[in-house]
């Protein structure tokens, strides 16, 4: 019983403790470091599995520690939390394998993996956060833990990118803090509640609530890379590839999007938010970001930058799904949290492989690369097609539900956004795919390394193949009872119960 209650804490600790130990490991203790990393990742995944099982069977997992007078540090494993926890635990495991391969022989690995683990700790914490204060705590921890990863290379460029990242995220954190305290002075509680806890508030406070909502969206939008706050993301590409994967798919950007979901559903309540009239502006902002990101992606020659702008665009699908207001759109938005993560992590793995193996950093250098690295490019192609939304891949599922949801909610204009975005996605992904498979390859690659029989080192190859398989598999099996889609349906049914 007691152990079961503390499961959420253990999920957080399963990366915190190994991370803390790793900081003190010597650079040369590679085996110990790998063991700690893998043990932490596997334990976290196992714990997440246990809790999933438990929740399905009606158990509740929550734990409180006193923090401020009247407000606890509160972790609770609800269905929405578990969606994010499971996603981040799975992707962390794969990213860790990838990072071990990627960073082989590079300096400061203990520091790197220490902060890497802290990042995932923060992600798990904010996923499980049961109130806004706890969310805020882990949100800030995430900011702090990612900073050393972004500046990891220690170049002047990295320092400036890190500085830019902080200007955005610390600013966002400050807005979030302000919004949280302000809300607390109005309500006296900060606990996430299905269908929100604000609708009972006196109408006098409604203008304040709108301002607070704007503060929340601005504070969270920074991490979610919503339109005016996205500037840090493409710059942060100076970080090593596993960090990019982490930022885009597992932790940072997702944390922002997840926060928006939390605020809209469990603080304001979707119906109350719609009554306040704040959802439509959010939908418009999200749509603008979707189109803007795609257009910018079109003109990037640097592969990672193109992927970064693609993230700006894709993550806003989540916010869009939330803001359209309706059970079906909600399903589309939430399931995209998972689908985008899997797809994008694959793309970054592949980009890292190209850079590590052949020294390819630019789209224009990718002609015929599929013949040299068929596995990598197969994974890349599947994910890219998923991003475009080709059935039966995962991206199609997301877009289908988003579109249906928009029609259902009577917001037909969203269809045009989706269609336009898909066209743009195709426009910036298909040329890459085409060039990689069908254009003749150059005689030499920019900077080739040999890995024997395999096209690249196996820890670099395995993770993208698995995630690409997931992209295909979760799309095909979308209606099976263990798919993310089914889980999201379960969550949505809670939010929209009559």
């Amino acid at each position, binding site marked *: 019983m007691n152990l079961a209650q503390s499961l959420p804490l253990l999920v957080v600790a399963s990366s915190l403790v190994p991370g803390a130990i790793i900081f003190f490991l010597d650079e040369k203790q590679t085996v110990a470091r790998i063991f700690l990393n893998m043990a932490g990742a596997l334990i976290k995944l196992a714990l997440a599995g246990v809790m999933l099982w438990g929740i399905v069977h009606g158990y509740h997992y929550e734990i409180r520690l006193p923090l401020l007078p009247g407000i606890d540090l509160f972790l609770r494993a609800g269905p929405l939390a578990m969606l994010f926890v499971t996603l981040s635990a799975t992707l962390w495991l794969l990213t860790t394998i990838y990072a071990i391969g990627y960073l082989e022989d590079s300096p400061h690995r203990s520091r790197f993996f220490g902060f890497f683990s802290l990042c995932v700790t923060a992600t798990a914490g904010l996923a499980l956060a049961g109130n806004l204060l706890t969310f805020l705590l882990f949100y800030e921890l995430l900011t702090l833990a990612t900073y050393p990863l972004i500046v990891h290379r220690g170049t002047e460029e990295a320092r400036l990118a890190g500085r830019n990242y902080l200007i955005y995220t610390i600013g966002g*954190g400050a807005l979030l803090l302000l919004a949280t*305290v302000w809300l607390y002075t109005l309500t006296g509680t900060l606990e996430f509640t299905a269908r929100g806890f604000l609708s009972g508030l006196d109408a006098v406070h409604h203008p304040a609530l709108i301002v607070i909502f704007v503060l929340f969206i601005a504070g969270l939008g920074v991490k979610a890379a919503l339109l005016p706050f996205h500037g840090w993301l493409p710059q942060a590409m100076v970080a090593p590839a596993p960090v990019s994967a982490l930022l885009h798919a597992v932790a940072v950007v997702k944390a922002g999007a997840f926060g928006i979901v939390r605020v809209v559903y469990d603080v304001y309540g979707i119906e109350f938010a719609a009554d306040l009239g704040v959802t439509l502006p959010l939908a418009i902002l999200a749509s603008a970001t979707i189109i803007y990101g795609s257009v910018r992606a079109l003109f990037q020659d640097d592969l990672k930058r193109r992927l970064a702008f693609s993230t700006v665009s894709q993550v806003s699908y989540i916010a869009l799904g939330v803001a359209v207001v309706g059970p079906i759109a909600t399903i589309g938005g939430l399931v995209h949290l998972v689908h985008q993560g899997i797809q994008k992590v694959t793309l970054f793995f592949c980009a890292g492989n190209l850079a590590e193996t052949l020294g390819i950093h630019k789209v224009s250098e990718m002609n015929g690369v599929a013949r040299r690295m068929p596995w990598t490019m197969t994974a890349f192609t599947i994910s890219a097609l998923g991003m475009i939304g080709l059935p039966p891949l995962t991206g199609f599922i997301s877009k289908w539900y988003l579109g249906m949801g928009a029609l259902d909610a009577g917001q037909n204009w969203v269809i045009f956004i989706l269609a336009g975005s898909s066209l743009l996605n195709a426009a910036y992904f298909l040329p890459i795919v085409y060039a990689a498979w069908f254009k003749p390859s150059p005689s030499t690659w920019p900077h080739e390394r040999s890995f024997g029989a395999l096209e690249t080192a196996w820890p670099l190859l395995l993770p993208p193949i698995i995630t690409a398989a997931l992209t295909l598999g979760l799309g095909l099996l979308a209606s099976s009872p263990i798919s993310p889609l089914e889980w999201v349906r379960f969550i949505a049914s809670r939010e929209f119960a009559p």
Partner: protein
Amino acid sequence: MTGDLLGIPWAVLLILLPLIGGLACFLLPSLSKSLGLLCALAILVAVGGLGWQLAENGAQRYAIGGWGAPLGIDLYADGLSLLMLVMAALVGLGVSVYSSAYFNGDKARHFWPLWLFLWAALNALFLSADIFNLYVTLELLGLAAVALVALAGGADALNAAMRYLLVSLLGSLFYLLGVALIYHGFGSVDIAILAQRIEPSPAAWSAVGLMSAGLLLKTALFPMHFWLPAAHASAPAPVSALLSALVVKAPFYILLRLWLEIFSPTGAAPGQLLGQLLGLLGAAAVLWGGIQALRQTRLKLLIAYSTVAQLGYLFLAFPLGTSIAWKGVFYLLLSHALAKAAMFMAAGNILYFCGHDRITDLDGVAQRLPLTLAAFSLAGVSIMGLPPSGGFVAKWLLLETALRSGQWWWAAILILGGLLAAAYIFQVIGHAFTQADAPAETGLVPARMEWTAVMFAFAAILLGFFATDAFELIGIGAPTSGVSGG
């Protein structure tokens, strides 16, 4: 047995232990390190004893010489004094451990007795219930602090020490003239008696003005902070830690006592006005200190300006005035003490290692002194007020009060101050993470010095988790009972 231990006047021991320790260190310089460390441990035990006594029996009053106020001098310990004493004991122990590695030879011989006398002055000050006795403790504190600053040697340190001494004496004289007027007006120098007797009169108002001015000068509230950055930056690292963590807080503590117990009944209207004025100056300090810190090229000066800014926060509670806001300030006192001590120690380690503290040339510190950088960064988290640090708890409480009372401009100052803090702290961290071109190792930092800094930084972070218990202890004797609820 328990009763016997409870009966011990721990408060008196807290004053006597460092005094005796200081005397012993002066007499036997060769043993001063061990004596100093022993003394630091004993003081920690005594603070524990006093805390236990307070938790069991509530606030304590102790009549020295058995006379009792108003004829004699009383010691008074409540939750607020306990907070300050605990702060001094923790920082004092850490500084002692750090200094045992930092100072050697002739410097150590001078450092230990001065430091222990300074500690005695602090403890005596935090326990005194008598405004003239407070004057004596202030002078003892000031002279010891000046001597410790000058211990660094060199033109900058001597210059800073000289200015510090003049400012300190000036502040004390203002305070003393105020005491003179109060005594002749109301026939006592005991705070509790004065709290009952005082009433609005020209003498009372003059005294309020004089004493506040003197104490504000000593506690370096903007724009009277001009002396602080040089003094705190040019002192030896452990002394900088002491000054920023403890010494500037002492006059603030007196101000707080006077404000909460004597001055509040001297008439509501000027009190309100003065409160708003102090809040404004505090806000200016937060912004000015932050901007100046950002502009510094030397690490220790940056940290010193950060102290100017952080002291500004303390004054935001004056216009807010509720007991929640005061709690925030109390917590800020403690968390700032721990965090700032950690920062100055970290800076000391960097100075020790690199031989300079130019911020742009800190490249590679992350690799060579990872513990020190960790200490600096973690302490920075508390200074910025990010969760779950003690600084966060303080900031939260102040923000909450500001928003609740509709005085949103103080909330804006709190947020802006946090952003400025983040900016100057990450400026340092950013440079520390850059790769060094050529490794230029000069000296090895003793492990003790790195670990002490790390421990302090961790303590500042973990402080956030003890807020509820801490507020219970601070609430003993209701130090903010004179404050209106709204």
